[in-house]
């Protein structure tokens, strides 16, 4: 099953199970969404529960919040995560804060789904990775699934979560295939996963960087190096125990994400590891690999250069291994 199909399956199963769940977003009905994720759901659930909205991102975000506040479980799709900027007030100043501002006497069980990332040639306004913006906000949960099984399990948990969840799907992952458990299958939000065990170094990878890191780990294995690949899966709340345990085990940490390095979430992960007791086990400084300090360019070569590719991760891993123990 592909990643996109796994999302669809999660939506379908949860809509069947819970009549409060409904979808809203631009062109999600007959069109099936810009990436075809919701294709066909309107046939089963009708236009009441698979609700096409006008191109009005602030209203989309706020409307979902209002519905969540009063007994529904909306899943709102932004066509591209870049456009969440238009709904930002509703997400950050309203949805994330209402419960707290109301003294803990309300719940906002809403999911904001959106495709993120580059690699499709859509250039600067359709390709960003802005997850760190959201991870900075208490009251939100932020999830970046990297496999078909994860995306299903995490989406079911996100819909059932009583808090606003930002659910970011990488565009290039939509066509990735993988095994997905049928039926009831949930993954707790806030649980990292070791995608491949190893002892020589840890590669902490987010979203699309997970399959890339796994490919690098396979290549390193041929050279006799065992890389451990860890996927945090959720940025907020962050499962730092798993990350710290891996750092402590291997003593060498490479963090890879597509987002621009400055202010990127890798900085947060690095800081958490460096300020934990894993620090004493490090054989080399923590290395971060992130996007270039530029908006995503249109040109294919430049676009590739702007985000870490397999070769970049491989080279970074090599550099990290060459560092002498401190």
């Amino acid at each position, binding site marked *: 099953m592909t990643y996109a199909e796994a999302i669809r399956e999660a939506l379908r199963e949860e809509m069947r199970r819970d009549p409060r769940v409904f979808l809203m977003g631009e062109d999600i009905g007959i069109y099936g969404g810009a990436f075809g994720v919701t294709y066909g759901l309107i046939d089963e659930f009708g236009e009441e529960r698979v609700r096409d909205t*006008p191109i*009005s991102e602030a209203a989309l975000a706020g409307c979902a919040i209002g*519905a*969540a*506040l009063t007994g529904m479980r909306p899943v709102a799709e932004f066509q591209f995560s870049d456009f969440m900027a238009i709904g930002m007030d*509703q997400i950050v100043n309203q949805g994330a804060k209402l419960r707290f501002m*109301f*003294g*803990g*006497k309300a719940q906002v069980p809403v999911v904001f789904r959106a495709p993120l990332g580059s690699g499709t040639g859509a250039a600067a306004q359709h390709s960003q990775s802005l997850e760190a913006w959201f991870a900075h906000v208490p009251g939100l949960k932020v999830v970046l699934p990297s496999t078909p099984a994860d995306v299903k399990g995490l989406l079911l948990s996100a819909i059932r979560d009583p808090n606003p969840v930002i659910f970011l799907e990488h565009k290039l992952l939509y066509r990735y295939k993988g095994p997905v458990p049928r039926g009831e299958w949930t993954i707790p939000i806030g649980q990292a996963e070791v995608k491949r065990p190893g002892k020589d170094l840890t590669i902490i990878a987010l979203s699309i960087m997970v399959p890339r890191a796994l490919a690098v780990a396979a290549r390193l294995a041929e050279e006799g190096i065992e890389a451990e690949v860890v996927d945090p899966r959720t940025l907020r709340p962050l499962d730092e125990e798993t990350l710290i345990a891996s750092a402590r085990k291997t003593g060498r940490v490479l963090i890879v994400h597509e987002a621009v390095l400055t202010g990127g979430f890798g900085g947060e992960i690095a800081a958490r590891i460096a300020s934990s007791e894993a620090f004493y086990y490090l054989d080399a400084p923590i290395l971060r690999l992130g996007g270039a300090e530029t908006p995503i360019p249109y040109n294919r070569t430049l676009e590739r250069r702007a985000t870490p590719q397999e070769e970049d991760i491989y080279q970074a891993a090599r550099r990290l291994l060459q560092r002498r123990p401190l």
Partner: protein
Amino acid sequence: MSEAVPALSPEQMRCLLQTMYRIRAFEEKVDELFMRGEVHGTTHLSIGEEATAAAALQALRPDDYITSTHRGHGHCISKGADLKLMMAELLGKETGYCRGRGGSMHIADVASGNLGANGVVGGGIPIATGVGLSIKMQGLDRVCLCFFGDGAANEGTFHESINLAAIWDLPVIFLCENNQYGMSMSVRKATRCETIAQRAVAYGIPGERVDGNDVFAVYEAVSRAAARARSGQGPTLIEAVTYRYKGHSKSDQNRYRTRDEIRAWQERDPIKRLAAYLREHSLLTQEEIEREEAAAYQAIEEAYQFALASPEPDPDSLLEGVYA
């Protein structure tokens, strides 16, 4: 006041008077506490605008929803809030509606359908639309009344939300309290439109402009809009023209308007107008009216004493309520 005989019982009219006195008394007390430094942060008073809040809620049912604004004390009181819990919230006490986490600009009582004041101009408008959607999808016989100011009518959320509510026939009443200023910006400078209500044309819904200092006019307009909403015909935009006597907030030096302008509006004071009507129609005696007024100030004093005696939040509870 409206020419037509209002469709309100004498008991409802007395209730309107009580509510308006309570709003005014509450806000005068808040003003005083602010001056004395007992309330911190900022606060926005709606003194002079009491008729819209009181009449709009009189036209709704207890289980209807509202979303409110930074100038929301009146909406909250009209929705039936406990004055003690409100005052405790303004004093930042644990016993307040939001356990002292919200303050003046974020008071909510979700249990009674008050979905909160809002510190972001125009921020509540999409939320109200979502509440309307929720009501409709659950097949409930409720409406959501969305308060906002003339300033908020120039936010993008206003346009997006009303359009959405219109295409989906949502049971939402968009009630613009046009007090004629967004901070210092006069509504005449902020838009080329003659009225806010005429914008309804752009969304294909009814728009109506009423005298916001006339409780009966507001009551009737909101009643009509509520009936429309409940019968599945969708949203209405109402513009209630009113005025705030006090500054925008505590920092306001009032440089953008004249004393004469304020005085002229004070002559059309909504509370005095209703009181005069009740006297002239022998519905209440002057003595009864004065008793209502005194009772309101008394209730506020009790609320203040309750708030004063209430405990502060425990610092160790700081992280409570962030996540469910």
